[in-house]
């Protein structure tokens, strides 16, 4: 119990520092066609006719923040072929556990509701686009 409290306090501290920092920098909120996904809405979201791409991230992860705008741009460029979602792994542990996610950013790719591939780590936008197009 004591350890859980400590973890909560570490997490809250990290999150607050990041939020404060983002506010200071006037960081823009994510736009594009990226839907926020939770554990509860996950299964429904992946069952689409389009290819489904889910960006799994956490607020204190720097590479995740670097990836976010690239995903956002791709969500606009590939809107007719791919459905994009983003899932906070800290708030949605079930999906992270189900897909053995242990490093972020991890991008999960689904076709006809089935998991087909994952991309781990920060990659160039064009490399991500090529990977998604290969799956279409």
């Amino acid at each position: 119990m004591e350890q859980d409290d400590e973890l909560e306090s570490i997490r809250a501290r990290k999150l607050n520092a990041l939020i404060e920092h983002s506010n200071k920098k006037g960081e823009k909120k994510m736009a594009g066609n990226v839907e926020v996904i939770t554990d509860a809405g996950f299964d429904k979201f992946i069952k689409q006719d389009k290819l489904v791409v889910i960006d799994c991230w956490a607020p204190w992860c720097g590479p995740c923040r670097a990836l976010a705008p690239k995903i956002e741009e791709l969500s606009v460029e590939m809107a007719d072929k791919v459905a994009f979602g983003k899932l906070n792994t800290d708030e949605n542990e079930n999906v992270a556990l189900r897909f053995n996610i242990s490093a972020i950013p991890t991008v999960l790719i689904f076709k006809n509701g089935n998991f087909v591939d994952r991309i781990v780590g920060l990659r160039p936008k064009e490399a991500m686009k090529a990977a998604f197009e290969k799956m279409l």
Partner: protein
Amino acid sequence: MNYDVVIIGSGVAGLQAAIHAARKKVKVAVIGKIEASALSKAHIENYLGIETSDGSKLLETGAKQARHYGAELFPEEVISVEMSEGGFIVKTDGMKDLACKALIIASGISRNKLNVEGEKEFYGLGVSYCANCDCHFFKKKKVAIVGNGSNAAVAALLLKDYADKVYWVAKAVTASKELMEMVEVSSIEIISPAWPAKIVGENVVKGIVLKDGKVIDVDGVFIELGAKGAADLAIELGIIADESGSIKVDRECRTETEGVFACGDITGQPWQMAKAVGEGCVAGLNAASFARKEVE
């Protein structure tokens, strides 16, 4: 400890920045181990005016010059940087807090791959290069930290608050005395001298096989080689490196965060001494001007 300019990195870019900043009569600190610079093991033969020289000799002379002009050199590693009122606070593995008005990142590029079987296959499935990012996936699990220095010690100390068991695998532990005191009273188990031969598993990491054949059952492997990379430090200041790990700067060596400058290999190729020295000069002068509020 208060400074006008703190320089992270004591390679040629950092030392040249120190010389130029210190000559502008601002208080300068340089943090880094000269022997950790990539140049210290290199032989120079393409730098104007020097026919041949050993990198280590050149760096030692540079450090002497920087001291001569008043810069203070700390042969330590940076474990974190943060923004503060009116500037930045840099924490070292010697447990020093250095406050400054301007910061120069000159700590080179990270070369952080272990290059063993299973590393690539299990990246994201148990293998991680970022303890801060990925610690929360290892609650109540068993993990191994691989690395010798303070960066590995910091990762092990963080992971012990999440994982049930933390092993620290090192060829030879070189972390600071202060961090080692914290490690020694913790539950972290040091396995040294030892080094991984391969990472094994089935779909996800199940363990590491050490070079002596011993197997350690773990769910996660955190690879923490060398000093904390410049890209990782930059992220703490809101500066996002690109895919190649480089930080974007303008012609004044300014990053996107006000008061933070960068020079040398971290700003991108060519990874050459001449380019690092030139950028060090620009960053040093501009950081000193910024600290003295000569620029808006």
